[in-house]
C-alpha cells in the first residue's frame, strides 16, 4: 500500500513517527528506531497492522541469532525487491512500526521479533512467514520462561495460515511450531541441549540418537526435515547439496544461513539466487567485525547467554571452520588469546548466574584475559573451572597486553556496545 492509501490518521502518525526518529538521530540520542515507533504507536495503535497490511512479511524469532538471520533473509529478498526491516535490532512493536514506516513502499518486510512479543506481532501483522530457530535459557530476570514461551507460540499459530520455517533439531522450537498450518522443517543443528532433555508435550525423557530425538513416553518426536545443514553444506528438499561458503564465521551462522534459504524458498526465491546474496553479508551490527589498534586485530563476538557463549567459543576457537590443519597437512593454527568481558546492566540481565551454565573448561590452554563490570564474577567462575586468566581493569588495558596479531573478544550485550563505542561505532 502506498502512503496515500493509508487512512489519514495513520499517515499522520507514521509521518510524525518518522520526524521523531529523525530528531532522535540528529540529537544523537539513538538510532531513532524505537522513539519514532513509539510516537507512531501512541498516535495510532493500529498503525502496525495498517503498515503491515500489503507487505509480504516474514517474522524472525529465537533466543539467539535473530538479528543475524533477519539480516541474511533481508539480503536474500533484496534479490526480488525493496525490503523493510528493523536493522538496528529494535525488536518490539515500536521498532516494527518504525521499520515499516521507513520502508513504506517496500513490497517485502523482514522483522526480528522479541520472543515474548511474537504472539502479539503475529496477530497484528498477519505475517505470512515465520522463522523460528532456537529457544534456550536467557537472562532470566528479564526474559520469559521458555516452556511458557513455546506454549504461547503454539496458541498464536493455531488456526492461522502462517507458514513456519522451524529448526526441528530443537525440541522446544518443534513443539512451539507444531500447531502451525504448514511447516518447513530445517535440521539446523542444536549445540546447546541443556534446556531440552525433557519432552515439552508430556515432561517425559527425550531420547537422543545422533541428531534424532523422540519422547520415551509419548508420540512427540523429531519431524522429518525438508532442509538439512550438513557441516558446510545446505541440503535442500530435493536433495541438492549447496556449499554455503558464507563470510559469517561459525556453525551457528551456517545454521542461520540454511534457515534463511528455507525462508527465501517460502517467498518463491530459489537457492541459486538467494545463496550468493547471503555470501555478501560480512558483519551484523558490529558482530564478527575485526577492529584494529596498534597492530592488534580484535574480532568482536557477542554472547548474551549460555547458548550464545557456545557459539562464540565455536568461532573463537575455530573448532568447525575450514579444514582440520593436521588432516590437510598444514601447520597447526596458532592459538590466539581471548578477551572476555561481562557486564550486568539492564539489557544484559542483572543476574550473572548464567555464567555457571557455561562450560569454560574449553578455554584451558588459551591465554585468557578477563574484564568488564562484573569481572569478579567471571574470575571466580574461571577459577572454579581451573582456567588460568589475567584480570584487567578495562578493555583497553586487556588489549594493550596482547602481542600484535589476532585476538578474539567475547562480550555480552552492554560490554560489547561499550567496546564498539570505544572504536567510534565505526563497526
Amino acid at each position, binding site marked *: 500500500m502506498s502512503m496515500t492509501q493509508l487512512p489519514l490518521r495513520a499517515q499522520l502518525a507514521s509521518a510524525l513517527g518518522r520526524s521523531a526518529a529523525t530528531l532522535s538521530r540528529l540529537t544523537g540520542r539513538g538510532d531513532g528506531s524505537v522513539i519514532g515507533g513509539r510516537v507512531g504507536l501512541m498516535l495510532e495503535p493500529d498503525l502496525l497492522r495498517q503498515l503491515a497490511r500489503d507487505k509480504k512479511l516474514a517474522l524472525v524469532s529465537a533466543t539467539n541469532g535473530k538479528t543475524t538471520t533477519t539480516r541474511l533473509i533481508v539480503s536474500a529478498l533484496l534479490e526480488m525487491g525493496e525490503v523493510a526491516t528493523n536493522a538496528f535490532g529494535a525488536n518490539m512493536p515500536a521498532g516494527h512500526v518504525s521499520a515499516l514506516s521507513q520502508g513504506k513502499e517496500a513490497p517485502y518486510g523482514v522483522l526480528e521479533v522479541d520472543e515474548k512479543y511474537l504472539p502479539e506481532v503475529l496477530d497484528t501483522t498477519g505475517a505470512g512467514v515465520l522463522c523460528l530457530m532456537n529457544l534456550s*535459557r536467557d537472562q532470566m530476570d528479564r526474559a520469559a520462561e521458555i516452556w*511458557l514461551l513455546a506454549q504461547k507460540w503454539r496458541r498464536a499459530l493455531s488456526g492461522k495460515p502462517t507458514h513456519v520455517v522451524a529448526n526441528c533439531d530443537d525440541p522446544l522450537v518443534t513443539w512451539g511450531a507444531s500447531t502451525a498450518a504448514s511447516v518447513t522443517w530445517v535440521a539446523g543443528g542444536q549445540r546447546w541441549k*541443556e534446556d531440552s*532433555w525433557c519432552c515439552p508435550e508430556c515432561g517425559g525423557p527425550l531420547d537422543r540418537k545422533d541428531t534424532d530425538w523422540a519422547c*520415551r513416553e509419548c508420540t512427540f518426536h523429531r519431524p522429518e526435515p525438508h532442509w538439512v545443514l550438513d557441516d558446510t553444506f545446505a541440503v535442500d528438499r530435493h536433495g541438492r547439496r549447496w556449499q554455503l561458503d558464507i563470510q559469517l564465521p561459525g556453525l551457528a551462522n551456517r545454521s542461520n544461513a540454511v534457515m534463511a534459504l528455507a525462508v527465501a524458498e517460502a517467498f518463491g526465491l530459489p537457492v541459486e539466487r538467494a545463496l550468493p546474496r547471503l555470501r555478501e553479508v560480512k558483519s551484523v551490527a558490529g558482530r564478527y567485525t575485526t577492529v584494529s589498534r596498534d597492530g592488534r586485530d580484535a574480532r568482536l563476538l557477542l554472547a548474551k547467554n549460555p547458548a550464545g557463549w557456545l557459539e562464540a567459543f565455536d568461532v573463537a576457537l575455530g573448532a568447525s571452520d575450514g579444514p582440520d590443519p593436521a588432516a590437510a597437512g598444514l601447520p597447526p593454527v596458532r592459538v590466539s588469546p581471548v578477551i572476555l568481558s561481562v557486564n550486568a546492566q539492564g539489557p544484559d540481565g542483572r543476574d550473572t*548466574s548464567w555464567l*555457571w*551454565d557455561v562450560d569454560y573448561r574449553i578455554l584451558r590452554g588459551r591465554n585468557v584475559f578477563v574484564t568488564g563490570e562484573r569481572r569478579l564474577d567471571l574470575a571466580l*567462575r574461571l577459577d572454579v573451572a581451573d582456567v588460568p586468566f589475567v584480570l584487567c581493569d578495562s578493555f583497553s588495558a586487556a588489549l594493550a597486553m596482547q602481542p600484535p596479531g589476532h585476538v578474539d573478544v567475547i562480550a555480552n550485550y552492554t560490554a560489547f556496545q561499550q567496546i564498539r563505542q570505544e572504536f567510534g561505532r565505526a563497526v
Partner: protein
Amino acid sequence: MPSDSAVRIVWIYPDLLSTYGDQGNLLVLEQRAARRGIPFESIRVRSADPVPETGDIYLIGGGEDRPQILAAERLRKDGGLHRALARGAAMLAVCAGYQIMGSTFGGEEGQPVQGLGLLDISSGRGSVRGVGELVAEVDSALNLPTLTGFENHMGVTRLGPGVKPLAKVVTGVGNGDGFEGCHAGHVVGTYLHGPALARNPALADLLLRWAVGSELAPLDDSRYEALRQERLTAVASR
C-alpha cells in the same frame, strides 16, 4: 561417613530444575572438596532415573512452574530423597526446589500443588516478583557470615515450627516475612538461586562438614571474598 569412601554429591534433576546457574553449587562443592583432598563423587540424576538414597549431599535447583510440578510428582513417587534425608543426608534446596520441599507450593495458575513434605514450610504465589540482590544475616546457630546472592521468584513461603529461618533479610524479599530461607537438621532451603554457594562459600563448607563429620582445613578464599565484598558494597551503596 566412613573415612575411606568418597563424599557422594547428588544433583537432583538437572534436566528439570537447573535454570539459574544451579550447576554452580555443584561445581563449588567439588572445587572445595578437591582443594582439601577430600575424595568425592558427583551424581547427576535425570528425572527419568531413580534418586540414589546413599548420597551425602543433595542439591536441587530452580526452574519454571511446569518442570517444578513434574519434579515434585516424580520425587514423591520415587521416595529416594525421603529415605536419604531420613538417614541424615545434607541438602541444599534452591528456589523452586526449596518450595517443593514443603507441604504445598503454587502451580502455574497459583493453584496449590502438593510438595514433598520434607520441610515444615508451605509456599504460594505472591503478587510481585522479587528480583534482585539479597542480603541477609544468618541465624547465629549456624555461625555463618552474611548471606549474599540473587533472587528471582514470585513465591511466598510460610515457615512452620519444624524449621528455623535461615537468615534475617537486610535487603531483598526472601520468604516474604522478613526472613530468607530456612534450615532444619542438615537441610537448608533458600531463594538464592544459581550459584548461591559461589557467593557463600562458608555455606558450602557447612554442607561439606556435615557430610564429612569433621572440621575442614581452611582454604585461600580471596577470589570468593573479592566477589562477596564487591556485591555487598554495591548493594549497600544503592
